[in-house]
């Protein structure tokens, strides 16, 4: 039976009551996203600790995508006719990093640098097995659920 699956493994905890992005932390306290198993730290090939990233942060910068990205690689369910512009940005997650992300709000007039944002896991496309793929996005805090990426 078709189900909801993350677009890629190790992107975020799923299924989960409160999903979170997954990062990798090295012994010097630095965090990387997406998660990777190891990294050179001070010349030593270190295994990274799998950590859940904060679910809330502030909008550091953003822009908009007006036309459907070239496909492949883009794998959205939309077509050039049904494509809805979307916004992307970096959200600063306190104590962790700035993560590049799609935003659920596409209108630049409703976005501003410094805005409080929170993680959402939203439907995106369909995989080869007919499952609905899910991706991470950030929404302005307080925005209604389910209005992300034209997917309501």
């Amino acid at each position: 039976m078709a189900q909801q699956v993350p677009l890629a493994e190790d992107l975020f905890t799923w299924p989960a009551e409160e999903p979170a992005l997954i990062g990798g932390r090295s012994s010097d306290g630095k965090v990387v996203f997406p998660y990777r198993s190891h990294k050179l730290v001070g010349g030593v090939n270190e295994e990274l600790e799998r950590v859940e990233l904060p679910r809330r942060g502030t909008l550091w910068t953003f822009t908009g995508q007006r036309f459907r990205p070239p496909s492949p690689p883009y794998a959205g369910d939309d077509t050039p006719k049904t494509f809805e512009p979307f916004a992307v940005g970096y959200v600063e997650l306190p104590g962790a990093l700035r993560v590049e992300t799609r935003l659920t709000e596409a209108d630049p007039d409703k976005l501003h640098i410094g805005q409080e944002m929170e993680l959402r896991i939203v439907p995106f496309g369909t995989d080869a097995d007919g499952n609905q793929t899910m991706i991470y996005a950030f929404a302005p805090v307080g925005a209604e659920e389910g209005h992300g990426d034209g997917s309501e």
Partner: protein
Amino acid sequence: MAPSDVAIIGTGLHPFGRYPGKSALEMGEDAVIEALADAGVEWSAIQALYAGSMEVKNPEAIVGLLGLTGVPGRAVFTGCATGATSLAMAANAIRLGDADIAIAIGLDKHPRGAFSDHPSVSGLPGWYGEAGLFLTTHFFGMKINRYMHDFGITPVTLARTAAKAFRNGAANPRAWRRTPMTEEQILESQYLNYPLTQYMYCSPDEGAAAVVLARADLASKYTDKPIYLRASTLFSRREGAFELLSPSLPLETAPSPTVFASQAAYEQAGIGPEDVDVAQLQDTDAGSEVIHLAENGFCKDGEQETLLAEGATEIGGKLPVNTDGGLLANGEPVGASGLRQIHELVTQLRGRAGDRQVAGTPRVGYAHLYGAPGTAAVTILST
């Protein structure tokens, strides 16, 4: 100024634009023939060849069109910084004693529309492309948006930059976009990537450029106006720099590779930004040119707002920038773009730029490139 052991003795350009039915190599051939004629040397005199292209895997195959002389020919590629690399490698071949005369060539022919590829070519996971994030244009929108917020740059300054590019393009008979546009038209065109509008972006296109270099002590044999290579630097990004195609960034920030390439180039040349008479700065979009003015040491962050209102970067201003219309008016055939910059600087320094000639006797030219995956290069030339 530090002494130089390499001189440019000739340059050639196949104008950038769209040429249905003409291959990138054929455009390269035209550019080389023009550069050889400018230098007054025969093809058979070339002892080393470095050719850059994004779309042509073996651009050194150009020898098949120019003549099979056995010349050592090598392909080079460093993204948008390719032109600086082919020039530096040709210069190094001369410095090492491998050649007395060498040529740097750039040629490309891109399909229409935004650059597209599989994320793995940039070391990124597949999902990044599937999700619609593998687009360099996002970075340009996001970087200038943050920069405007931090330093009080307004959309009018972006529009001024684009309007200047099209004005300079109109004065350049070999530019692609030769229709002047008003700041209003530029501001009112639709957003491609907020806050950048359609006319604030350059487009990928087609074209070629070539530069002939010689041992400095031989240069006067070929030209009465040799242009000396004073510096060439290239740096990749450092941890913390805000760069293209980054799924995440650390909280601790670092300057762009442009800052390091620029500082190292001034040091190599033994000059400072105040000594530069004419500059070429990577203007993938209008915001990039504005930011690059500061990153290359020509002003402090935020001063662009006043400088551009005063016309400082116009051909008649105190630091003319992108006098041939830059990427905005010429488009970007990636492999050739950096050598177009060199061609324009040499044309200006020799006083041959016609309607767009910088007044007085410009002595020092500065060229800057920036692109994926976070690479910046600077070249400094002088009479």
